[in-house]
């Protein structure tokens, strides 16, 4: 059934001013009621395309050099500014990854919502207030009136994203462009947002261009899939075609990157290296960060701490490592409670636990070369001056990085390379424990697999214990020996992956499992076990 497409992009090219081509020969289309997923990793140009369609490219740097962007037949490139402004928000809407930066922090939601109507001179029948409340209810926001009066920072991430969606849908646009709207959200919230978009789409017949890097999400919502790499379309087609029989090797890599559901039987029994005993912490303002949390990290094991935002998993890690102080409770290492020690003693033990952070860009000093960063840590941990360079190069080898990178700056490296440098820096202190705090979340999916393999090798080579903090149950299931599930500052379940993640063990775990997107194609949880391990035909 070939209805006329709402959006028809043909041979679109975007160039850097005075230079290279960023995006080349992009042709795709979206029909009413259809969801087209634009899939790619960082640097693929997917956001660039979305911005080009909305004419949001930073004009001084980038420009559309070729091609047509047809909206209901009319080429947007030929439209004047005024015409485009009318289209934006009214016929084409866009929602972004970070709703916080898309909402004005010093204005109430009501004011910003009002602007949507004012900008297009639309007065809904029954008044604006009624329409706004209606939209917020459609978005399943519990107390719409209170939300209207609130400021953005008073809402949670999920609530903000729903507000964004309401505002985007306020004028019944024909096309909704969603640029990674759920990437920053918890898995349960993500599930709700995806559902909401689907609902609205069904109700209003909106076409959706959904940008993501997660094939799980793609499997959940897409009708058509467009795979992007380095600014070019690698392949595109209907969902089942792409998933069942991907033609390009790259597509296959992306699909493979979704971890298979393979919960470990696990169960090491070595002595505990680090133990937390009834840690408690309350933030200023009363929120409970940790609620009597106890756990043991056994020597040589990979322990997964799983939870959503606000569960306390990062706080737990920071308390263990000394970046934050628990209000009460103890942390035992080698039989000594290190929370009771004076600061000087604490510092002595510090190097035994090292951390790899989530954002590798922020975790490296932008003005120091890689070699300098590594050398600083080596120096402080007792390496003699003449040996510094050799040791640094050796560390680069350990994390499988090209030795030449030692004289480069962080901005010259890719995200994955930077994270490896961070790991190398952590290893430079000769730790016994490595804490990876969402260390893979900011990386591309294709890289994740290699990183997991790297962690495994390092663990074996250096006899490390790894504390793996993540929200991704699939990853936790695959690599961890033990798993601890946290919620609202407390531990709700602990044990081997097989035991904890099996069906029916704990309602919250069930909830988490159910929320994982794309389970028709990438099973997870009990369903997978029921069907037998592995996934539907590849």
């Amino acid at each position: 059934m070939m209805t006329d497409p709402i959006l028809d992009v043909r041979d679109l090219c975007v160039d850097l001013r005075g230079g290279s081509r960023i995006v080349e020969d992009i042709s795709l289309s979206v029909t009413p009621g259809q969801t087209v997923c634009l899939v790619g990793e960082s640097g693929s140009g997917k956001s660039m395309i979305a911005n080009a369609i909305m004419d949001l490219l930073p004009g001084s740097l980038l420009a559309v050099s070729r091609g047509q962007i047809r909206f209901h037949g009319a080429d947007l490139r030929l439209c004047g500014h005024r015409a485009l402004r009318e289209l934006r928000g009214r016929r084409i809407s866009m929602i972004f990854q970070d709703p916080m930066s898309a909402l004005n922090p010093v204005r109430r939601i009501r004011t910003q919502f009002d602007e949507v109507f004012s900008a297009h001179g639309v007065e809904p029948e029954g008044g604006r207030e009624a329409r706004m409340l209606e939209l917020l209810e459609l978005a399943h926001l519990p107390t719409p009136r209170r939300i209207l009066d609130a400021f953005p920072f008073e809402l949670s991430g999920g609530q903000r994203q729903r507000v964004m969606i309401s505002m985007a849908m306020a004028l019944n646009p024909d096309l909704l462009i969603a640029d990674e709207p759920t990437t920053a959200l918890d898995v349960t919230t993500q599930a709700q947002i995806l559902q909401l978009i689907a609902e609205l789409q069904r109700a209003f017949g909106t076409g959706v261009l959904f940008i993501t890097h997660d094939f799980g999400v793609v499997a959940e919502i897409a009708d058509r899939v467009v795979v992007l790499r380095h600014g070019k379309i690698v392949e595109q087609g209907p969902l089942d075609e792409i998933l069942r029989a991907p033609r390009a090797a790259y597509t296959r890599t992306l699909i493979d990157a979704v971890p298979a559901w393979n919960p470990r039987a696990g169960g090491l029994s070595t002595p505990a290296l680090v133990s937390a005993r009834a840690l408690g912490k309350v933030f200023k303002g009363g929120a409970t960060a940790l609620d009597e949390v106890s756990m043991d990290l056994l020597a040589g094991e990979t322990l997964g701490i799983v939870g959503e935002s606000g569960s306390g998993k990062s706080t737990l890690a920071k308390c263990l490592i000394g970046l934050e102080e628990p209000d009460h409770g103890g942390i035992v290492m080698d039989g000594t409670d290190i929370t009771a020690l004076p600061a000087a003693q604490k510092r002595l033990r510090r190097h035994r636990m090292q951390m790899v952070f989530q954002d590798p860009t922020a975790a490296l000093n932008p003005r120091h070369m890689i070699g300098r960063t590594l050398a600083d840590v080596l120096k402080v941990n007792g390496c003699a001056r003449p040996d510094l360079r050799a040791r640094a190069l050796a560390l680069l080898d350990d994390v499988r990085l090209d030795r030449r990178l030692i004289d480069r700056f962080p901005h010259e490296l890719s995200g994955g390379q930077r994270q490896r440098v961070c790991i190398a820096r952590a290893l430079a202190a000769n730790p016994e424990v490595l804490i990876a705090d969402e260390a893979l979340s900011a990386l591309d999916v294709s890289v994740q697999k290699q990183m997991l393999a790297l962690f495994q090798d390092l663990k074996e080579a250096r006899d490390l214990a790894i504390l793996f903090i993540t929200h991704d149950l699939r990853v936790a299931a695959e690599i961890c020996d033990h798993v601890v599930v946290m919620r609202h500052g407390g531990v709700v379940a602990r044990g081997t992956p097989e035991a904890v993640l099996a069906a029916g063990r704990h309602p919250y775990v069930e909830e988490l499992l159910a929320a994982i997107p794309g389970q028709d194609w990438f099973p997870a949880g009990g369903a997978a076990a029921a069907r037998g391990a592995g996934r539907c035909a590849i």
Partner: protein
Amino acid sequence: MPIWKSLLSRPDAILALILLGAVVLAGVLAPLIFPGGPWRMVARPFIAPFTDMGHPLGTDALGRDLAVALIYGARTSLEIGLVSTCAAVLFGTAIGGIAGFFGGRVDSLLMRSTEMFQTVPSFALAILLVAIYSPSLLSIMAAIAVVSWPPVARLARAEFLSMRRREFVQAALLSGQSNLRVAWSQILPNVLSPLIVMAALMISMAILFESALSFVGLGDPQVVSWGYLISAGRGVMARSWWLTFLPGFSIMLTIVSISILGDAIGDSQDPHFERKETE
């Protein structure tokens, strides 16, 4: 270096560089070109500029060469500007850095002290200090430094505070590096850029301060400064306006040049380092 590239690409910055370079050169070479000093009475008084080639800018009420006085004045102004700014920046960065790095009570204590200095009108305080300790180059530099450091401290504190929470700083602390080391080698290089811009503008302020102090008679009487020249020329402005105008013009040129350069340095803030990868 990216800063030089940015500077040389802007025509106003190039002009500013040339002007400032001329001023600096004049100041540095003054004792070599005119070893007699600016106080010597070399001709009859009140020669107009451009009338006598031996004294291209004319002479003042006592027959002293105005061009020589201006050049020595450049020397004084630059000396005072640079030294007092350095002192203020060093001190302010130390105070602000400690406050921002450690936070809590240390921060409160240091910032309340800083505010104490900030609430006093700076020029009035400078006058007071110079008057108490007798006007001399040293007391003037000290007075200017004392009234100029609070804004630097506030900036340094803000920068250190934000940097402190950055992950690479936390990683450095975790790896065992001491607080001092982290502050010095990790944080400081990243906060240098805004501090340098501020320092550039503070040099302008210092030159203006010194001129104002000299104007009210609190300058070092042993040295010629632009402010002194303005003050001395004031008495005969009805008859020889250039004696006041030319030093004032020199001050204006110097300060405008410094401001332009400060802007250019600020603009050149290399986003390269901080830029996230483009999607």
